[in-house]
């Protein structure tokens, strides 16, 4: 019994870490640009699918990871210039609808290129599961935990300790003040989408070995990421990570202990609950810092 619980915990932590990364990119883009990017899940999928194709050419996994991240980062920047930038000044609702349009287009593109097949990616490191306390921990999970840790450290380092990070923060706090100092908000929006693309792809390539990859998995990943972010209050980086982990563990335990049909329902229930009872987010209520 204890081993089964530990096993569910490992699965939950792995799932949760994936949601955390997606939530992190959503929250960062939202803080920086005010845009809720509903195409974030698609960046994850395209990253994973590109990795599948690149890996097919015999490229080593590390190179596959890097190239895929770079390509989707470019895609993110390109899409920002082609859509968000052209609509600059439009309302947040219009921007939201644009990202929905992007999401649908990207899914269509993925369908055209990769079809409806289910793909898988090889794990980053060879070797079987590690047995911890009688439960099996997939080595790929450790890579995913590492990705969350690196992403978080990177975000805190960038925003807390670099001049450019502070310039971005300044533009979040006070747009007029930032523009008067010469900070170009359009450039910041562009860079936010480059980062969102790159991070999304990193998440996609990392989860590929665990979840299998299909062209249409982006929607659900986007929803999970959004739910995780909403639990954390939508503008709180730490909250997004906790929200993601919480969601992953809840999903894992409810599908393991009650019924596997519950897995996707959980996030919808939480989403409704959060929106109905605490629109500003559960953890957001006690948050003290933005970004």
């Amino acid at each position, binding site marked *: 019994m204890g081993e089964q619980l530990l096993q569910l915990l490992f699965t939950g932590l792995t799932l949760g870490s994936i949601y955390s990364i997606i939530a992190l990119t959503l929250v960062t883009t939202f803080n920086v640009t005010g845009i809720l990017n509903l195409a974030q899940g698609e960046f994850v999928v395209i990253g994973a699918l590109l990795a599948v194709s690149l890996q097919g050419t015999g490229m080593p996994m590390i190179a596959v990871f890097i190239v895929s991240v770079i390509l989707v980062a470019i895609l993110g920047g390109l899409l920002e210039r082609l859509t968000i930038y052209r609509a600059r000044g439009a309302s947040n609702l219009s921007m939201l609808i644009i990202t929905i349009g992007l999401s649908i287009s990207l899914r269509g593109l993925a369908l055209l290129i990769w079809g409806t097949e289910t793909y898988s990616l090889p794990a980053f490191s060879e070797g079987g599961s590690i047995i911890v306390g009688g439960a099996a921990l997939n080595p790929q999970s450790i890579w995913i935990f590492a990705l969350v840790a690196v992403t978080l450290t990177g975000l805190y380092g960038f925003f807390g300790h670099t001049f450019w990070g502070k310039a971005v923060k300044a533009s979040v*706090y006070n747009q007029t003040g930032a523009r008067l100092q010469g900070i170009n908000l359009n450039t910041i929006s562009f860079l936010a989408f480059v980062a969102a693309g790159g991070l999304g792809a990193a998440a996609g390539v990392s989860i590929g070995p665990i979840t299998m990859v299909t062209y249409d998995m982006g929607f659900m990943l986007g929803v999970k990421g959004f739910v995780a972010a909403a639990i954390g209050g939508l503008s709180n980086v730490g909250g997004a990570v906790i929200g993601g982990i919480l969601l992953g563990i809840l999903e894992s335990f409810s599908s393991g202990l009650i019924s596997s049909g519950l897995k996707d329902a959980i996030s919808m229930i939480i989403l409704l609950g959060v929106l109905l009872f605490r629109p500003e987010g559960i953890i957001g209520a006690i948050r003290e810092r933005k970004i």
Partner: protein
Amino acid sequence: MLRIKNLGVYHGYVQAIRELSLEVKEGELLAVLGANGAGKSTLLGTVAGLYKPTAGEIIFKGKPITGQKPEQVVRQGISLVPEKREIFSALSVLDNLMLGAFHRYRKNKPVLMNDIQEILELFPALKGRESDQAGSLSGGLQQMLAIGRGLMSRPALLMLDEPSIGLAPLVVREIMSILVKLKKTGVTIILVEQNTKSALKVADSVLVMERGGITHSGNSVDIIADSSIQEAYLGRAR
């Protein structure tokens, strides 16, 4: 140094500036006076690039800058210390000052600490508060920080929008004396004020605005002497 010709600016349907022309000479301190709603902030905001004019021309150092964005204007050497100060309250005093030098950060990084020291010499009250959150400062210190941040871009033209607003007389006097010091270092200054008395004390020339246009202009001695202006627009200045 700055020439404005037949400027027209709208906020939606409201015309805030109409057919306004003016000239600012290099090295002078120009005070712009006028009641609430006269269009003073719109004038400065338009020069700084925050608002797009519908008519007219703005020429700075012989080059047209009409319609440029704020991030471009500040690179030409014009800095606006806005009405609401717009400091970054959640960032430290030091970060605020650093960000004032945003557009020259890459080239001038090694000298920025020196520049910040200079600013702190100019505003000694900010010394020792470098790592405090800007939002935790008193109103007077926030205003000094806003001016200091504006100076970090090394402007040739510094525009201040009602720096004295809400501040104690002693602090106002300190800020005005700092503006005089700055002028001596060669910075051209446009000072928008409702605090007529303080502004007239430091100004070389004066403009009076009403409903988006200029009603009076002259050097400060003449304006102070003109009793009709005193009564109609400025209250008693002495």
